[in-house]
């Protein structure tokens, strides 16, 4: 092996050739025929494959390093935009604090007095869940039966356990997963609920819009109406029934936010 001090000494011809050809391959500088020979060698020569893997990582790393200044600047900029308060937003003079306290108390009283009874009803009015059907014809899946019975009778605590068992055997069943999210929502396990709804609405399932609908209901439950409204805006026009529900909820939210 050559003693290469920071690249000042030469390598053996074989090592030089390997490094050069691997780099050329990664940069797309080989002809189709050369590429074929190269790939055959990767399959048959373990030592060469090992060297290739390392040089590939080094090459990717170099490309990333070339971009680093650019993306770290962007990440810094966005971090400030999305996490920090706007400069000058906290001018705490005694007068401002007093005014803020008085205004807050007044608003809280008005909001409590006028809206409290309606708020508690808003979620209930709109959280009309679908009937869960997991049992197929001639199916004797006990977990599916228990899930349906508990969910459709509104016993969400028992339904949570039954659906989780069902999902262990059927992890890809998005409808059951959505139902599990609803159970969490109804039993106040809100973090678990929103994780499931986000997963569904960000996925490719046909139930995406229902994931979004329930994420909106999650925000209604938290009384974060603006976010609920934004969420509802992102529901597609595909399902007329869901769109009707969406419209009704947005009308109610509009009244609430006035």
């Amino acid at each position, binding site marked *: 092996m050559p003693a290469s001090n920071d*690249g000042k000494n030469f390598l053996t011809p074989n090592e030089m050739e390997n490094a050069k050809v691997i*780099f050329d391959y990664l940069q797309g500088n080989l002809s189709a025929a050369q590429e074929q020979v190269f790939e055959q060698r990767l399959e048959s020569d373990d030592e060469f494959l090992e060297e290739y893997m390392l040089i590939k990582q080094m090459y990717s790393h170099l490309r990333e390093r070339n971009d680093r200044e650019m993306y770290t600047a962007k990440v810094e900029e966005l971090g400030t935009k999305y996490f920090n308060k706007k400069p000058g937003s906290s001018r705490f003079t005694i007068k401002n604090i007093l005014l803020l306290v008085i205004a807050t108390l007044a608003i809280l009283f008005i909001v409590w007095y006028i809206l409290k009874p309606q708020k508690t009803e808003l979620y209930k009015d709109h959280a009309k869940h679908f009937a869960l059907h997991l049992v197929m014809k001639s199916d004797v899946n006990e977990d599916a039966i228990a899930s349906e019975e508990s969910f459709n009778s509104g016993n969400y605590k028992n339904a949570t356990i039954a659906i989780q068992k069902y999902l262990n055997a059927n992890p890809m069943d998005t409808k059951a997963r959505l139902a599990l999210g609803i159970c969490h929502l109804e039993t106040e396990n809100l973090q678990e609920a929103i994780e499931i709804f*986000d997963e569904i609405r960000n996925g490719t399932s046909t139930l995406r819009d229902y994931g979004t609908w329930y994420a909106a209901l999650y925000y209604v439950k938290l009384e974060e109406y603006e976010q609920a409204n934004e969420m509802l805006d992102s529901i597609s026009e595909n399902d007329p029934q869901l769109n009707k529900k969406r419209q009704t909820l947005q009308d109610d939210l509009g009244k609430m936010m006035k």
Partner: protein
Amino acid sequence: MSLHSDHKYIEAFRKGDYRLLDELYEKNVPQVKRWILNNSGTVEDAKDIFQETIISIIRKAHDPDFQLTYPIGGLIFQISKNKWMDELRKKKTQKKVRNALNQRLEDREEAFTLLLEKIEQDELLQRKLDSSFDLLSDHCQRLLKLFAKGAKPKEIVAILDMNNVNTVYRRKNACLQRWKELFNA
């Protein structure tokens, strides 16, 4: 598994296009922030964790073999959670870690878990590549970065004031070899 439509982010980052980052922040900051605040963190903690997560995804995107088969939002959330739990562990707040762990989804797909592990391993590898690269001479660093940018040897001769194309190739190979030695040391 087939590529997820969110692979567009990976493709863009791989090409050095970071305009879609804003969209990723807008969609994913609220969820990560909320979770970290609910688990004994501050807004500043959430910011640090989120930034680290985004950087690890950008770095992973430069691996030409990486293909995204899951929603990127789920990946960001899970990496952020794991990073925050590591932080809690470092602070030895066992109870908080337990609470945070209880909130993890129990039935994640195995492939998804493997992907997370791979991203964490790659972060260690990247750190090692970084520290060994920093030990190379400035000349070697510039030469290798120029090659990775796709500069032609003739251009490199001019930029780095070298003798000829043959010298450029020899130095490139020798610099790569030196980097390998430092990496393996």
